C-alpha cells in the first residue's frame, strides 16, 4: 500500500514537471451571420429502424481555444458554445409519422485531430404526430378527423461524436444519440430514443 502511494506521488510529480504552459483565449467570433452559422442535415432513426430525416442550424455564440504546450508541439482544444435548432421527422410504418422541432444549446469540444464531442440540451421542443385514417366518436356520433394526430411538449438531450473538416463547405459529420420526452402522453410521459447521423455545412466556404 505504501509502495503504491509513493508510485502515485511520483507519477503525479512527473506529470507536474511534464506540463508545459497552458494558454486559454476566447476567440473573437465572426461577425457575419453566415460565418457563425452551420447547417446540418442527416438521417434520423427513431429506435434505429423508424427512418426519418433531421435538419437544423447551429449559431456560434462563444469559442474558447485552450492551447497546451507539449513536447510534440502545442495541443489545441477548441470548445464552442452554440445556439441550436433542429427539425425533423420519422416514419413508424403503418402507425404514425412523428415530426418535431426543438431549440436549445450545444457544447462542442474539438481535439487537434478534429474529433468532436457534442452535447445538446434542447429544453424547448414540440412534437406532432400524424396518424392514419382516424375517426372520433363522441356522443354516439362518428366523424372523420382531418389531419389527425397529437401535439406534445418535447424537450430533448443528445450526446454524440463528430469529425471536423476544415477546408470545405462541409464542416463535419456527426453521430448523436438522442433522448426525447413527450409530455403529457397518455397519463404520463413517453421517452423516445433515436440516433442521428449527418453532415454539417456552411453556406460560405471556410478559408483555407
Amino acid at each position, binding site marked *: 500500500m505504501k509502495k503504491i502511494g509513493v508510485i502515485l506521488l511520483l507519477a503525479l510529480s512527473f506529470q507536474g514537471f511534464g506540463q508545459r504552459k497552458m494558454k486559454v483565449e476566447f476567440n473573437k467570433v465572426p461577425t457575419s451571420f453566415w460565418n457563425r452559422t452551420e447547417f446540418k442535415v442527416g438521417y434520423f432513426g427513431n429506435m434505429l429502424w423508424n*427512418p426519418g430525416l433531421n435538419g437544423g442550424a447551429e449559431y456560434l455564440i462563444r469559442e474558447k481555444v485552450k492551447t497546451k504546450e507539449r513536447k510534440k508541439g502545442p495541443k489545441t482544444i477548441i470548445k464552442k458554445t452554440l445556439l441550436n435548432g433542429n427539425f425533423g421527422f420519422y416514419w413508424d410504418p403503418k402507425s404514425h409519422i412523428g415530426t418535431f422541432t426543438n431549440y436549445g444549446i450545444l457544447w462542442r469540444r474539438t481535439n487537434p485531430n478534429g474529433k468532436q464531442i457534442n452535447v445538446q440540451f434542447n429544453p424547448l421542443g414540440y412534437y406532432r404526430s400524424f396518424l392514419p385514417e382516424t375517426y372520433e366518436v363522441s356522443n354516439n356520433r362518428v366523424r372523420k378527423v382531418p389531419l389527425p394526430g397529437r401535439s406534445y411538449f418535447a424537450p430533448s438531450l443528445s450526446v454524440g461524436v463528430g469529425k471536423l473538416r476544415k477546408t470545405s463547405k462541409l464542416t463535419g459529420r456527426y453521430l448523436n444519440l438522442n433522448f426525447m420526452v413527450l409530455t403529457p402522453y397518455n397519463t404520463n410521459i413517453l421517452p423516445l430514443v433515436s440516433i442521428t447521423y449527418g*453532415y454539417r455545412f456552411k453556406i460560405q466556404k471556410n478559408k483555407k
Partner: protein
Amino acid sequence: MKKIIYINVKTLTLCFSILFFLSCAKEDLGDLNNILYVRHKGADMPAYIHGNASEKVFLIILHGGPGGSGLEYRSGSIKNEIEKSCAVVYFDQRGSGMSQGRYSEDGINIDIMAEDVVALVKVIQRKYGADSRFFLMGHSWGGTLGTATLLHGTNQNLFKGWIEVDGGHDLKQLYFENINYFKIVAEEQIAAQNNLAYWNGVSVKINQVDDTQYNERDGDYMNEEAFKAEEILLSDMLLDSPREDFTSFGNTVFRNNPLTTWWSGGNTNGVLSDQGIWENISYTNRLHEITIPSLLLWGKYDMVIPPKMGEDAYDNLGSDEKKFVLFERSGHSPMDNEADKFANEVIGFLDSNK
C-alpha cells in the same frame, strides 16, 4: 463527401417513395390490410385490421395485460387460418401498444375502456357499413374487458358472439384459484416425479401465501411463477410447443415501437392496478346477463388463469348456446400451444353464428 451525401439522399428518397406507395395500396375486402385510429375520450387507439372482410364479419381481439398490444396476437393460426374466414381486428387498448393521447388517471378505467370497444365497433360500421357483423374475443385481461363491455347497457346487441380465451372475468376470485391450482398441479407433478426440485419449491412457497385475503405481493409472485411453471410443464412435454413463428415477434418489434409499447403498457398496468382491479373486479354473479352465443377456450395447464375459472363462466353464462373447450396440452395461450385446434374451434363458432 458530396457524392456520398447525394447517394444517401437519393437512396432515402427512393425508400420513402416505395414505402409510401405500398402503404397507399387500394383496399381489397377479400384480403384487408388496414389501420384505423379510434379517437375517444382523449385517446387515439389503433385498430389493425387484417383478413377476409368480404362477408363483413369482424373478429375483435382484446389483448391481455393490462398493457399488452393487439399485434402480439397476429401470428400462427390466427394469421394463417382465422384471417382467411373473417377480418381480424387487432386493437390496441387505451394506454397500450401504440395508443396515444392525453388524459388524467381518472380518464382510464375499465368502464371507459369498455366504451372504447363500443367506439371501435361504431368506427368500423362507419368505415365498412352498418351491416358489418362483430364477434368479440378477449384473452386474459381481454376477458375482463370483454365481459365488462358486454355487461354494459345493450352492448351485447352489437355482437354475434363472445369468445373468452383463458380470460379474467373474475379477478377477485383469481387470487384464490391461483393458490388452489398451484397446489393441485404441484401435487400432481410431484406424484409423477416431474421436476421435483421445482415443484417441491413451489409447494413450499405456495403454502406461505396468504389464503385468507388478497395480498398484492403474493398475487405478483403467483403471476410471475405461473409463467415459469408453464415453462417447466413445457419442458416436461405436458404442453405442445408453440410453432416457431417470428411474425408475432416481428410485429411487436418492427410494427410497434417496443420501447413505446413497454413503457405505455407498464404505466397503464400500474394505473389500473392502483385502482384495485385485482382485488375488486368480479363479474361471475352477473354472467347470467350475457345471453349471446359464447365460446370458452381454456388451457388445462393455464397457471395464470386456472381452468376452474372457465368452468365457472360456463356454469354462470346466461347464453342458450355456450361451449367450454379444454385444451389438454395448453397453458395460458392455447392459440400458441394448440394452434390448429384453436383455429378450428374459433372458425366453427364464427360459421355457426355469423
